[in-house]
């Protein structure tokens, strides 16, 4: 029993982290159909910028904000200068963004070196919450809370505001959206920035939990992609359910079948796609 509760908790908190990473990615996919191999780099660079900020200031919320804003700016540059011209050209997108991912990987290595770091979390987030014989690390609870708040805000914005309606319209049919006078170009740029912003938030938050280290970018990227395709591109609900599924499958897989752990993650995902190629909540 203890095992199951602990593993489920760990899975859910990892799923929460994945939602931060993949929620924005899903909107980007849904709206622009852009395959962005740089998304893992946003996560990694966000973590590194956060690390530097916290070393200089010692202030955790500032680290999250600074990391996220810096990466959002990088994302907007990349989108404006290269990606928006490649709409509909999947191969071009994959190769261009892969080029950026390699460049960012090397720049991070030059600036921050090859050692792994942990971002020191504030005192109020350390320690564990005890219920009976079970311990729940406060930091993991914090991640779940952050993801829940982000999910709620995104949902409110998408469903209850004018901008959200424009975004949904652009996901559904960009051409019609443009036709009724929505500035699709601006909306796309905002969503791209938002995706990069959230990926960097995930990177800083993850820095206090799994750490910041070279290679984290390509390690987490496939997870983000799998969350998005299984949930369905452009669907927030899909991204949430996909994140939890991937988080839980990953944790239980690693705990129960260590030798087959990636198989137990990716094979069910492939099976879902075999039945529903557009994901659980996606539309073709």
């Amino acid at each position: 029993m203890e095992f199951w509760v602990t593993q489920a908790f760990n899975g859910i908190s990892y799923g929460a982290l994945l939602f931060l990473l993949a929620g924005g990615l899903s909107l980007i996919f849904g709206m622009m159909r852009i395959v962005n191999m740089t998304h893992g780099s946003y996560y990694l660079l966000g973590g590194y910028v956060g690390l530097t900020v916290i070393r200089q200031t010692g202030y955790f919320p500032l680290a999250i904000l600074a990391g996220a804003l810096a990466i959002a700016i990088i994302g907007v540059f990349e989108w404006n200068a290269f990606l928006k011209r490649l709409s509909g050209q999947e191969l071009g997108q994959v190769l261009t963004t892969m080029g950026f991912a390699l460049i960012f990987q090397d720049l991070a290595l030059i600036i921050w070196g090859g050692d792994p770091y942990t971002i020191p979390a504030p005192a109020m987030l350390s320690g564990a919450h005890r219920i009976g014989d079970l311990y729940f690390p406060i930091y993991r609870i914090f991640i779940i809370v952050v993801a829940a708040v982000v999910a709620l805000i995104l949902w409110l914005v998408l469903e209850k505001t004018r901008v959200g309606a424009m975004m949904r319209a652009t996901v559904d049919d960009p051409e019609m959206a443009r036709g009724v006078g929505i500035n699709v170009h601006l909306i796309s740029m905002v969503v791209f920035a938002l995706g990069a912003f959230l990926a960097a938030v995930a990177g800083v938050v993850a820095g206090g939990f799994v750490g910041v280290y070279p290679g984290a970018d390509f390690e987490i990227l496939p997870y983000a992609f799998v969350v998005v395709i299984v949930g369905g591109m452009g669907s927030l609900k899909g991204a949430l359910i996909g994140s939890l599924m991937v988080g839980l499958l990953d944790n239980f897989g690693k705990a129960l079948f260590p030798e087959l752990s990636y198989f137990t993650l990716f094979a069910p995902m492939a099976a879902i796609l075999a039945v529903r190629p557009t994901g659980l909540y996606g539309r073709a």
Partner: protein
Amino acid sequence: MGLTRFSGQQVVAAIIFFLLLASPPFLSSFLLTLLTQALIYGILAMSLDIILGYTGLASLGHAAYFGIGAYSVGILATRYGAAFGITLPAGVLLAVLVAAIFGTVALRATGVYFLMITLALGMIVWGLAHRWVTMTQGDNGISAIPRPDLGLPWSLSLSIPFYYFALAGFLIAFWILRVIVRSPFGQTLVGIRESESRMRTLGYHVWLHKYIGFVIAGGFGGFAGVLWAYYNGFVSPVDLQLATSVEVLLMVALGGRGSLIGPALGAGIIVLLKNLVSVYTHRWLLILGAVYILTIVYAPEGILGAIKRRTKEVKPRAVGVHGLTEGEIEGG
């Protein structure tokens, strides 16, 4: 006009063939191993070209088949001392089998979805190589894979004989793939790339053609992997990770999709670049990253595509002078 162009191509092909055949004694052993590596990656890139270039489906998981071929050799040769006569069919057949299973899942999708599904499928195979330690030795990889003994008078553990061995593999793969893409089957794949709905309306079984193309690509990917394991003497999860799949995409895109020769050329350029640049600087990832971006910005159709466009730009004058139509020149 058409005739001279045709024989011009033949002359170029003959010169390349002669250079590949005659160059080993004049090359340093470092360059020779790089050339061997380029030939093997050339097979991998040509195999991807069948689905990417000829069928128009970009796969993000092609390294999986390369890895399956390589790991088949690694496991069979080091554990059971299996000979080349066993490892070659085993590696290729296993790659074909996995492609036959994966194809049923992946080909339900197109475009971005196809990319993402092939990525997830590729990760399954990578995950096994990475975590199934009792079988694959995990991240340590399988080392000390002996070079094959074909009972020839020359030992394949020497670099020159192994080069000719790889060259033979390359030429066989090139010849078979060329026959395939020039066959009615291959032409149907091109038709599907250009307009799937039109081919369907004409009564072609589109799915089956794509599926067979996908499986063929997987099989030749496995063949390249078999040669790679023998060349390198070592296989590890790096051989089938996501970055490797993307690198093969780059090789195909850089050389020129849908031409077989282009991807082989792209493979050669990337292999040489990676290895030569890393001799001079540790910052080769920056340069490789720039190559990715510059390829898409300046040569989206690849090197062969750019050459073709230049020759086409000259064409209108030729039409004027000789009074030939576009079709006559194309048909040559």
